């Protein structure tokens, strides 16, 4: 069985109420496969249990990448979920600690 990591690498991030996940093919053939099979609907369905809304896919052929943007990753969802799970990658606070207002932990610094 081939793992996803064998054919792709990825980078996620968030900005405001949006989160993005960029998925890159390791080879042109890998990218072609991803482009055909990794749809926005699939990504949206995968993250739906986290309260993530509609997902848009942007194709970036020159980087052999697909950029998935989740625009409806609302702050409310983020705060509720992010006590130990950052919205996309941000881990601004220690897990499980109650100190400080929750919203403050997700203040963007960059």
């Amino acid at each position, binding site marked *: 069985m081939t793992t996803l990591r064998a054919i792709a690498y990825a980078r996620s991030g968030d900005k405001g109420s949006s989160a993005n996940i960029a998925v890159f093919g390791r080879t042109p053939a890998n990218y072609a496969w991803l482009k055909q099979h990794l749809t926005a609907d699939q990504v949206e369905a995968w993250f739906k249990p986290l309260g993530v809304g509609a997902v848009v896919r942007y194709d970036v052929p020159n980087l052999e990448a697909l950029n998935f943007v989740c625009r409806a990753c609302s702050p409310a969802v983020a705060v509720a979920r992010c006590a130990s799970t950052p919205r996309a990658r941000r*881990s601004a606070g*220690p897990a499980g600690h109650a100190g400080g207002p929750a919203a403050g932990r997700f203040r963007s610094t960059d």
Partner: protein
Amino acid sequence: MGPCCAHFGWTASDHDRLAGATVAGHLLECGAQACGGFSTDWLDLPGSHDIGFPVAEVAADGSCVLTKPAGTGGAVTVQTIKEQLLYEIGDPGNYLSPDVTVSFLTCAWSRPAPTACGFPVRRPATSVHLQGQRHLSPRLQGPWHAHGVRDQAVAKARRAGEGVLRRLQEAGCNYRETLVECLGTGASVGGIVRRVAEADLIETVLRISVAADTQDRSSVSPARLPRSSPAGRRASRVTRQAGRKSCPCSVTGRA
């Protein structure tokens, strides 16, 4: 952007050049991440405890060469640049900035011959703040989140923890005890409860603890802590917790 405009005399209508400088700034923005500090393949990079910060040599046409200081860890590769280029963005065809809207859909790159980086290296600052808990005995603990891709969560967390301790030791810190724990692996109940297979964990919390023989505040490296590793992105901010006597500990480093 500002230094480029000042140096090259660009105007607000030099959109292509401004776009190039915007891309350079976007790549530099998150420091060591451009050199693999947040890469999917971070575990494979050399010197992950001391990843260099990127340097962009911007040309008059707005193109740039990305490199890093010699002797630092990490790597500048097509992969690390591509990863960073699509970091925290929305529509890659319309990257918004106050100066220009940039399309990443026409970005191209080449591999220049490796050359020595001639940029002046300044001495790092002589102090850095690290917050943690100071207990009655001189010890310091700080949890980090660690998220990995499937079976790599614990491996990345442990590597990050070892990197932090290595940096502290290289800065002259001597501790009586050090401990790197990956919570969720059975770290706190070792020998009692059967440990779970680390490869089965999809996330963990890294906890680093040190204990010293003196009451002096511990010293930390004034140089770059491995804050851009996946697990050690930033020194943890431990605040007061209800029902537990602890206080933020401000730690000053030696020059």
